């Protein structure tokens, strides 16, 4: 037995933690096998993963066929039919997924709009973009420029709206919805929080009506009876009617997000602005809205995610957005039976779009959170 060394209090050197508490082993002990029930849960989780992950990975990647000219050829190339995914089908249909039936010599217009979308988004998403003020002007003009590019007219070859489909249609509906709903939502929210009783009531009725009925019902109205509301003889294109309904729908939800933001502004701000002699609109434009918009960006992004997913509902009234193109592709006789591939591909597309938006919203929430540290509990 070695002799125990003695120390003056406070001079004992720091010892490394026990091996079972540090490193990978320690991490596993604490996070996976802390108690008996934890161990059981971990084993259960591993079993769940084991039961589907290897099959899924091999189906999606190892057994998958990337190029073929028909389903028969696809399945012949696998160890057994349906052992892997036939991504060749998605590849063949890829352009249709993106553009629908858009004339192929005019595709540059859609592509250009798509690139411009990112330029228009940049000043909204990030506050350190050079020339942000000028870019904002571009953002405000973007819906009109893109609309002109995609639908044509004024010197460009006009494109029939039924030809627009796939991801392009999803983006057209989504971007129109958000571009219209933001200003409309701000006005509705201001109306709902104003102290003019009649105006307030009208806004409440509109918002609660729209929020109380499903989008499908509104789309049905758009497809069957919206023309009745217009002067006799005028007929609107189905896409335009859908865009109107989606915009109204989104603005009601946006109004509630903005109202939440308005509730977060201390009353003293508005009182101070009043005391300084600013008019109502000056107060809103200079004092309230810059703060409200900033704190409600996460909510706005979430509304946009919802809207983006809801654009798939136009399938029900016979339009061909991303999901609609997928379902149309399923009817192709040479590729019949590849339901899983198509749905999984579309699911991945939506997942990537929406998840990146929600990651951005999380990032923003964290960023805004640190700026108001003193308000935290």
């Amino acid at each position, binding site marked *: 037995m070695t002799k125990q060394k003695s120390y003056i209090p406070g001079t004992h050197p720091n010892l490394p933690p026990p091996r079972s508490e540090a490193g990978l082993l320690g991490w596993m002990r604490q*996070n996976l096998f802390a108690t008996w029930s934890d161990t059981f849960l971990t084993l259960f989780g591993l079993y769940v993963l084991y039961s589907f992950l290897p099959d899924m990975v091999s189906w999606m990647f190892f057994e998958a066929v990337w190029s073929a000219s028909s389903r028969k050829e696809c399945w012949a190339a696998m160890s057994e039919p349906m052992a892997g995914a036939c991504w060749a089908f998605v590849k063949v249909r890829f352009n249709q997924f993106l553009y629908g039936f858009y004339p192929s010599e005019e595709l540059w217009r859609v592509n250009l709009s798509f690139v411009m979308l990112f330029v228009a988004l940049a000043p909204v998403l990030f506050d350190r973009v050079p020339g942000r003020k000028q870019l904002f002007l571009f953002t405000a003009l973007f819906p009109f420029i893109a609309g002109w590019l995609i639908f044509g007219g004024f010197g460009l070859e006009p494109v029939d709206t039924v030809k627009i489909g796939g991801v392009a249609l999803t983006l057209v509906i989504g971007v129109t919805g958000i571009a219209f709903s933001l200003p409309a939502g701000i006005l509705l929210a201001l109306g709902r929080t104003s102290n003019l009783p*009649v105006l307030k009531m009208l806004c409440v009725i509109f918002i609660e009506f729209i929020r109380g009925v499903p989008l499908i*019902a509104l789309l049905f109205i758009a497809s069957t009876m919206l023309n009745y509301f217009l002067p006799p003889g005028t007929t609107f294109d189905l896409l335009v009617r859908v865009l109107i309904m989606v915009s109204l729908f989104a603005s009601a939800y946006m109004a509630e997000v903005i109202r939440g933001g308005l509730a977060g502004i201390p009353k003293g701000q508005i009182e101070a602005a009043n005391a300084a002699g600013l008019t109502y609109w000056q107060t809103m434009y200079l004092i309230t809205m810059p703060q409200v918009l900033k704190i409600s960006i996460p909510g706005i992004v979430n509304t946009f995610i919802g809207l983006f997913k809801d654009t798939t509902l136009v399938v029900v009234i016979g339009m061909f957005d991303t999901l609609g193109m997928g379902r149309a592709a399923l009817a192709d006789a040479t590729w019949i039976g590849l339901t899983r591939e198509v749905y999984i591909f579309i699911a991945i597309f939506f997942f990537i779009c929406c998840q990146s938006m929600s990651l951005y919203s999380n990032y923003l929430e964290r960023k805004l959170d640190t700026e108001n540290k003193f308000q935290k509990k």
Partner: protein
Amino acid sequence: MDQVAASPSQDRSQFRRLFYNKEVRSVFFQIVTVLGVCALIAYIGMNMLTNLEAVGKELSFSFLGAPAGYDITFQPFVSYSPTETHFRAAMVGLSNTLLVAVTGIILATIMGFTLGVMRLSRNFLISRLSQAFIDFTRNVPLLLHIFFIYGIVINVLPKPKQAEGLADSFFLTNRGLYAPKPIFEEGAWLVLVALIVAIGASIFIQRWAKARQIATGQIFPVFWTCVGLIVSLPIIAFFISGMPISFDFPKLKGFNFKGGFILRPEYLALWFALSYYTSSFIAEIVRGGILAIHKGQREASLALGVTPNRTLQLVIIPQALPLIIPPLASNYLNLTKNSSLAIAIGYYDIVATLGGISLMQTGKEVETMFLVLTCYLVLSLIISGSMNFLNSRLQLKSR
């Protein structure tokens, strides 16, 4: 000052004062708004009447009494045949909407709370698995989930002939879920009465136990007593009254099952997809609600020697619930509204019957859509009203 101003400008300054008067201005603007809205509504109404007249239609709800002439494959509550009226078909649709909404809300709540708690688990693997499921589900459109699940039910589940049943009474096939159907005979009401008595007694015991705990500090095992009562009383009543409930088991005859109770694949797909899609939102709400409770609350409770379970029950949940319930209510509303996606897979809900086939057959767009919208608005009002009531009951009484 007034004397200094020249008399011709007096009128103008009065007018200006009127213009700058806040009350006068607000009344003026409101009158203008109301007039504008009225004019818009009148304009739309006029247009609608002229347009309807032009195509030879008139506004009337008499079509509701006419025979519908189409079949509805799933009608668990309201019996229906194609010879019956459009009104009857709409009732079937409404009951189907209610069925999928109520069962969906129940399943979504259970799954959502489970997922939310799993997400908060200290266990790394469980927490990450739950997160992966939540993220994937939330970020893919509901319609896609519904199509996908419907595809699985139709294509992957076995045909009735190959189906292997659970205890020879539940069969999951590509034609739906077959289950034993209870047949109520004479005396079955006794079981129902026993159930009601048990629930009443449970509420009484809860109150009594709470009063006793406040008075004496003793804790009574309320939960298990109530569960025991609610389970055992109806069973005892069942045997005493001579077993008045029997079951009609599904039997395989030829290519399909005969007898029993069947849940159609459309219902199964819609119900399941709606539930797990909504559950991923509920899970995030639950997680957010629990995380919002300050850490010190839990630590203080543990420091006082309260067990972890009682801490959850007495400290965390009472504070988290008021935060959870309002967004939970809006998710229930969303689920109910989303049930209208039924039409995409041919489940006959209110939109598919009244707003779909009835609309196409009678050409009464305005009337049918008006009724459909009214149904949803009433449902929304009921759900948000009851959730507000629940919330006001659960709100912590603070100074």
